[in-house]
């Protein structure tokens, strides 16, 4: 078990980080928000979203390391959080990649199927197939 420098087992005895650290982070976050909005007027084509995400990640890192104190606490808390992030990536990649590769083995799979359930939804523009049956009663989805 860890050695506790504090002799009183019931009360904590910590000092905060210097004030300028917190003010500095706040200022940086404000600045980066400004950058995010400013940079949105430019079109980087395929890089638009990655650039926005990069700036967001820098902001997130500042919040996590200093406001959430992970830089000081470190240890298993960081392992726990980044494990979560790792498994999010594990979920994302095959799911997106599945859609990308649907036509690898069978090219017909990439064809989009136009289909609208007759009578629903009321205002979405979608072609009703010419031979679609009349809407049956008791079938609207928003009936829960």
């Amino acid at each position, binding site marked *: *078990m860890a050695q506790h420098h504090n002799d009183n087992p019931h009360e904590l005895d910590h000092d905060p980080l210097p004030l300028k650290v917190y003010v500095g982070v706040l200022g940086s976050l404000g600045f980066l928000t400004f950058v995010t909005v400013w940079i949105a007027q430019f079109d980087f084509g395929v890089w638009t979203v990655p650039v926005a995400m990069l700036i967001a990640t820098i902001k997130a890192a500042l919040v996590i390391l200093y406001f959430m104190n992970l830089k000081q606490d470190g240890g*298993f808390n960081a392992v726990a959080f980044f*494990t*979560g992030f790792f*498994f999010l990536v*594990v*979920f994302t990649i*095959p*799911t997106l*990649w*599945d*859609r*990308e*590769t*649907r*036509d*690898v*083995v*069978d090219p017909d*799979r990439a064809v989009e*199927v136009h*289909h*609208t*359930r007759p009578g*629903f*939804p009321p205002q*979405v523009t*979608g072609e009703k197939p010419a031979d679609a049956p009349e809407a049956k009663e*008791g*079938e609207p*989805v*928003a*009936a*829960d």
Partner: protein
Amino acid sequence: MSTAPDIATQAPSFPKEHYLNASKGFKSWALTVDHKRIGLMYLVSVLTFFLVGGLFALLVRLELLAPGGMFEQKTYNQLFTLHGVVMVFLFIIPSIPAALGNFFLPLQLGAKDVAFPKMNLFSFYIYAVGAIVAIVAMVTGAVDTGWTFYTPYSLTTNTGVVLTVFAAFILGFSSILTGVNFIVTIHKLRPPGMTWFRLPLFAWSLYATSVIQLLSTPVLAITLLLLIAERLFGVGVFDPALGGDPVLFQHFFWFYSHPAVYIMIVPAFGIISELIATFSRREVFGYKFVALSSVAIAIIGFFVWGHHMFVSGQSEFAGMVFSFLTFFVAIPTAVKIFNWTATLYKGDIQLRTPMIYAIMFLIQFTIGGLTGLPLGALGTNVALHDTYYVVAHFHYVMMGGTVFAFIGGLHYWWPKITGRMYSEKSANIGAFLLFIGFNVTFFTQFLLGFKGMPRRYFDYDPEFSGLHAFSSVGSWILGVGFLVTLYCFIQSLRKGEVASSNPWGGTTLEWTTQSPPIAHNFIDTPTVSTGPYDHSEVPAATGRAA
């Protein structure tokens, strides 16, 4: 463990003070923060829902006893859906962790409670609320989509999808909070001397299970929320009519539900380790490998969910990758089976009831695991998907595996929980009936699946009738077996012999305190200086109170 158990020279008397009589009255249970009382409340709840789910199963098998529909098609769909929903969400996922884990994790760690006792009680109330919502959903329009809620049918069916799915959402929170509690407990509340590799294997399995619960349940939560939003507002993510993708729903759903099956089995593995260690009087062979294999299963289990989706419309390329990865998850599981078998070899085998359950587990789980392989292989899956082969496979691992381990664990820890022994004779009759009933019911279903009988069908061609009838009779033997086991436990409570603190000669810390334990578990925090399965100082137990 270094402390000697109490060896009575005469039958001990029932302890005067223990956790059951430490405080009295409804409020002392409703507002308890004692992990043992919370564990007991969970135990009663999950066993009740096991009964409910079992009744649905009996009705399903009754429908399939002979060709020709006894029930209407929609009613049958509702029956098997409810069987699945109740068994998965209300019984098996909470079962071992919330009932036995809550009770015994702190005891095995020599701790006075879990890390967050109030949150533990809160978890139980979340479970209770989820259960009530589920019951309301069942009686006001039971769902007929199958427990998997596939779109687009779950978007259009005129049954209580929103309420049922919301119940599962609520139950997920209970699962998550229990997982948080266990992980912090194991990190922070181990006693002096108990390093990670001196943890009992049941604790290791609860740790791995908690990791899986924490990483997978939130994805189920968002899947269910999106399903509700889609039904109520028409978001457009899962409904092809709105531009959505039903296969996306399956990705979301199975990312949780495949790791979920490891939530179901890994705690059972932990129990089996305990049973085999105690009743062969040996340390589990390759302790470190068994411990780390739980973690390996937890991790690898997240990479394989697409093997439920081979014929769904998923890209064949993704299917190939998922199939390849699926074979890897068998490896750490096999490590466990081999190591347990090696433990038994030249062990000092005590063939008590818990050990009988452990051996039944080894046989049944191995069959279940091996039959997963043709399902994991892409080519053979195409023929077997959605047939009774799948039904048989998962019942062999979940029921022949988890449920049998759960009951075995219940027999093992019964003296500690209640302070009483049960009649070995009734217990063994129950075990025997369960074994016969289970295998008659479900082995038959492998054959049915092979012959091409599809699952979730309320009727069938006459060529399947012999096997179906045989399977249904098996379900009745199972029912009798459960009743006999229940009777055995009830008789134990009424007039069972008083148990000593260590009737089996176990070596983990829970056996060093009285049966039933005092409210604070231990008078002083124990110190540990050996591994958890050091049998050198523990004398041979008789299984009796003396």
